[in-house]
């Protein structure tokens, strides 16, 4: 039997080369590589935008740009980082690792998988095109509403808003396609013997993410469609004159927007325990407890959205409900933290770069979670809302909790993907520079927020000057130290010390049984899991 299978596969191995390989590929590893590369490029694009903003905020007064352009940079920075950097990175890992981890020959719907990726470059073009058009005198630049599109500002905006609306549509289609593919793969392609409760944690994290995406991304699509018809076809969804309500948009948007936070984090919570068990050289603690917590967090994330706009006005019982339900999410999250720490407890630990990032991640993401509890308090939120405290909080969750987690994953799996070990010294340097400059960038922003500096302003009062200066300088250090990351990835991809199949001494799981890099078709014959 095995001979026929192998022979059949070899027909497909003569895939096209050059650009056609990447345009037409149905191979999960090729598509995963494209996702990850795209994500890295967009991470640098979005990052340079925010460096422009930090340069403007270096001192009070307007130096570099007009306020409108400042607002455009802020909105596009957020959209790029969320939709074009973090989400594709997680999808890239899913494409690369889920078939390897569950012993599948490929993703279940390979052509759809290809489409899922190739929707991303057009959306990136849609997001950034308005800047270019403005240079040629067409329109007035990108959307200046922030990434949240709140009306009435977004209804008054120029063509930049329309471009962003369609970019969100395409990104949404891409995410839904990716989710469908992952759900099908996980339900239908697992190796014989791998029950759901034996699935790797990363697969669990992504399964719940995929469900969340399918439930919420279409709602965002609906909301921005209403925005579009309000802008161009005379509907009154968000206008009181016609019986609509701008606050309705906030409800619809955050019905998507809050689960989106977990969409960005759940995949990371999936592979973090795997990294921890590898470098602690002992099995993951509380597998079942972690799975149930992930499910609980996913379910609860859909019903807490209104804490993003407590100050917009709602009845007191609604305020109380959204406050308590939001705080209740910290319970399953605390279970996860406990399991992560207990996995390391009395382990035979070593601190290679992935582990450094993971341990740093636990601490920094913990700060993000705790400051979130503060914001969930209705009374306290009246002061913190829309201040730099919020900015610092969600950068602790999304930069530390999201991107630094992704970086841990990159260092962890890069030897498996490329077949070469990365430069450990540079990796560690990258970690320490990132962790320190990240904290120096965002800790001052907590204080700025507490002192009353609002977010999304290009100019500020004089008493905020010192903290902003520290934050700006550190932001540039943070940005430049990512070049080490880029250099390390490129040089690892091009060569270096050969990686063994297992790569890490304590690594367990099906992906480590294959060669590094794995063959073009991973499991031509499905392994059996006991």
């Amino acid at each position, binding site marked *: 039997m095995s001979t026929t299978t192998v022979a059949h596969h070899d027909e497909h191995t003569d895939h096209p080369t050059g650009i056609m390989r990447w345009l037409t590929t149905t191979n999960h590893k090729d598509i995963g590589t494209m996702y990850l590369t795209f994500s890295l490029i967009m991470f640098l694009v979005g990052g340079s935008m925010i460096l422009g903003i930090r340069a403007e905020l270096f001192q009070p007064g307007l130096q570099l740009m007009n306020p409108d352009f400042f607002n455009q940079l802020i909105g596009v920075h957020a959209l790029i980082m969320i939709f074009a950097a973090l989400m594709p990175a997680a999808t890239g890992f899913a494409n690369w690792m889920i078939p390897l981890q569950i012993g599948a020959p490929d993703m279940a719907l390979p052509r759809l998988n290809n489409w899922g990726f190739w*929707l991303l470059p057009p959306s990136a073009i849609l997001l950034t095109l308005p800047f270019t058009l403005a240079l040629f005198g067409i329109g007035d630049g990108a959307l200046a509403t922030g990434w949240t599109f709140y009306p009435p500002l977004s209804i*008054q905006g120029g063509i930049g808003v329309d471009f962003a609306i369609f970019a969100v549509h395409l990104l949404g289609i891409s995410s*839904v396609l990716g989710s469908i593919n992952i759900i099908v793969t996980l339900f239908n392609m697992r190796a014989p013997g791998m029950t759901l409760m034996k699935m790797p944690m990363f697969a669990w994290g992504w399964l719940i993410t995929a469900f969340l995406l399918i*439930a919420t991304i279409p709602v965002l699509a609906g909301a921005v469609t209403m925005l579009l018809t309000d802008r161009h076809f*005379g*509907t009154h969804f968000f206008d009181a*004159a*016609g*019986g609509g309500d701008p606050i309705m948009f906030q409800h619809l948007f955050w019905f998507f927007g809050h689960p989106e936070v977990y969409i960005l984090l759940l995949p990371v919570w999936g592979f973090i325990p795997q990294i921890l068990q590898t470098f602690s050289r002992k099995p993951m603690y509380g597998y079942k407890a972690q799975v149930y917590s992930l499910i609980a967090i996913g379910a609860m994330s859909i019903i807490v959205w209104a804490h993003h706009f407590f100050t917009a006005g709602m009845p007191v019982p609604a305020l109380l409900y959204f406050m308590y339900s939001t705080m209740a999410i910290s319970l399953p999250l605390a279970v996860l933290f406990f399991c992560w720490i207990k996995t390391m407890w009395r382990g035979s630990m070593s601190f290679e770069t992935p582990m450094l990032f993971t341990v740093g991640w636990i601490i920094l993401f913990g700060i993000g979670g705790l400051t979130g509890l503060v914001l969930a308090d209705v009374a306290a939120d009246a002061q913190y809302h829309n201040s730099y405290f919020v900015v610092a909080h969600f950068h602790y969750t999304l930069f530390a909790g999201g991107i630094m987690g992704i970086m841990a994953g990159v260092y962890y799996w890069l030897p498996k993907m490329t077949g070469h070990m990365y430069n450990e010294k540079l990796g560690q340097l990258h970690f320490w520079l990132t962790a320190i400059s990240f904290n120096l960038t965002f800790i001052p922003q907590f204080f700025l927020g507490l002192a009353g500096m609002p977010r999304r302003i290009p100019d500020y009062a004089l008493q905020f000057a010192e903290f902003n200066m520290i934050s700006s300088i550190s932001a540039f250090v943070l940005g430049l130290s990512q070049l080490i990351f880029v250099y390390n990835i490129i040089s690892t991809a091009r060569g270096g010390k050969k990686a063994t199949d297992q790569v890490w001494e304590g690594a367990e799981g099906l992906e480590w049984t294959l060669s590094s890099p794995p063959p073009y078709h991973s499991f031509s014959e499905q392994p059996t899991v006991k």
Partner: protein
Amino acid sequence: MTTHSNNHYYVPHGALYPVTISAGLLALASGFIFSVATDTNKDLAYLQTPGKWMMYIGAAIIILMTFKWLSAVVIESITGQYKKWEDKSFRIGMIAFICSELAFFAAFFGALFYMRIISVPDLASFDPLFTPYKDFLGTWPSVGPGGVVLGTEYTPAKLTPMGAWGLPAINTALLLTSGATITWAHWGLLKDNRKQLVFGLFLTVALGTAFLVCQAFEYHEAYTHMGLTLGSGAYGATFFMLTGFHGFHVTLGTIMLIVILLRSMKGHFSAKNHFGFEGVAWYWHFVDVVWLGLFIFVYWL
């Protein structure tokens, strides 16, 4: 997993369809934006014509490529590449896709409920001494209290709301019957009764088309005689967006049914292997269910 066919999963060869469709979507989206750019900026009126052409080209690319992509899949299916394992993938994938479609409609139903229960009554419940909306009652159907919208005065027009027991009731009957006829066709397929399959599908297509004709007539009535337009405040917006998106899905469903009908006439599908048929049938039932929601909450209550 003892035999070759059970153990081997068919990974299709690469194709340019997806990336070309994406390019078509890019042209369609940016073309649309250019064609309506004059709404927000009068200086951009010169973009209107090129924008329209971009839209047409984009739409043509998308339709052509979708057709080619699906025909490639059909060929793979009739040459026997898809076995049980692949079939199950398609089924799970279709269920997940329909769930995402339900979530899309949920957004518009959510908007309808929000306006009916929260925003419209709220606008009528301000303190009488201070309210800017003195004679506004806040009852449904509502076109809103009126006021200035982005610098232009919006005066709510009088309209007759769409009653439930005329055309909409007929439409309900049409769609429910079509759900029954497609199930009857499915029974025919399971019994290998090709005549029953083809006739059942033909009836379903006819009922779907009749539904679309009725709906077009209803829209025409609304615009010409009832003063009900997309710009008629909360009622007009939710009415046309919900029924419009539903109608769009019925159109897609009917096109899919026609394809399935033609394939059935060519002798495709067997009692054991007919995901293509079932996927379309599921989609058709989903469209049916959404319509029931529309009938109850948009027309009736």
